[in-house]
């Protein structure tokens, strides 16, 4: 059950969706500049679910192993952002990002780098934009490249508060011309969620003014 304190009102959902949209637009724009090709983004899907379910929601989308760039953020609200690629896709992304000028070996050497930097650009653009919208500062960790399953990426610990609720955010993206696909997933724990709710309300008040 979602505690009443963190249930998002419809307007708050709208606001959050909008903010995420902006962040992701920015990220998509950045990715486009890096690759030079059209990037498609889906409408963000936002759900409040258990951590275990969040992990499952990821694994539901993929059967194979995943490669991801992970960045944790903290500040008024904290959480984890992931840029996830199915493993079979990631090299294509590297090739795209390194500009097709490198040899095959160089591409393999650069894989880790390229993924890290891409993740850096995308996640940072997204999170930073969101922070700006909410008029707060977040500090981000240095992005890490990880490989594993959905569960491991979200580090669902069987003993610990696997029942803890999280905000699960999910955006599909695809670069058709290069057959690149992946998604951005974000989780935020409940205390953070409460703060986020406040910030959203502030945002709404700011923007909507008397029309709220």
């Amino acid at each position, binding site marked *: 059950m979602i505690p009443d304190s963190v249930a998002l009102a419809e307007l708050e959902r709208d606001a959050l969706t909008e903010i995420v949209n902006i962040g992701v637009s*920015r990220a998509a724009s*950045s990715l486009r*500049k*890096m690759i030079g090709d059209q990037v498609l983004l889906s409408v963000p899907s936002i759900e409040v679910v258990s951590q275990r379910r969040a992990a499952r929601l990821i694994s539901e989308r993929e059967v194979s192993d995943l490669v991801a760039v992970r960045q944790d953020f903290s500040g008024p609200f904290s959480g984890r952002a992931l840029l996830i690629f199915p493993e079979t896709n990631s090299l294509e992304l590297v090739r795209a*990002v*390194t*500009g097709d000028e490198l040899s095959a070996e160089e591409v393999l050497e*650069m894989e880790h*780098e*390229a993924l*890290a*930097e891409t993740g*850096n*650009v*995308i*996640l*940072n*653009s997204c*999170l*930073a*934009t969101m*922070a*700006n919208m909410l*008029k707060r*500062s*977040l500090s*981000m960790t*240095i992005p890490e490249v990880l490989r594993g399953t959905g569960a491991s990426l979200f580090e669902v610990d069987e003993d610990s508060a696997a029942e803890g609720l999280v905000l699960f955010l999910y955006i599909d993206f695809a670069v058709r011309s290069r057959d690149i696909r992946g998604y951005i997933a974000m989780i935020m724990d409940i205390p953070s969620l409460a703060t986020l709710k406040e910030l959203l309300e502030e945002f709404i008040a700011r923007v909507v003014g008397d029309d709220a």
Partner: protein
Amino acid sequence: MPVTVLIVDDSKLARIVAGKALAELQPEWSKIEASSAAQALEVISGQTPDVALIDFNMSEKDGLELAAELRVLLPDMPIAIITANIQDEIIARAREIGAAFVAKPVTPDALEPFLSGAALRLRSPRP
């Protein structure tokens, strides 16, 4: 006199990307690279760069810290903080130390305003 640009970024790819943008805008300028703040300071002891492009998000010492130190050492050097972290706070802090702000990814378009400004500054005599 050839202009030297110091590129500091822990990501090799980022350094390549910045270098490419630089080469496109100013083909005659040369670059020296460092992959961390510490390494950058080492490099500088040997050679003084004319311009610096510094990534913000680095471990141990972040780009803003390094930029602040460089500002003390080289008060007039054009410095740009390059980062995807476009938070207002970062932008504001960059301004405070007299550094420009270039959002990643560093395309020639993104770098152009800073570089043309830097080129002007370098050509005009020091006051």
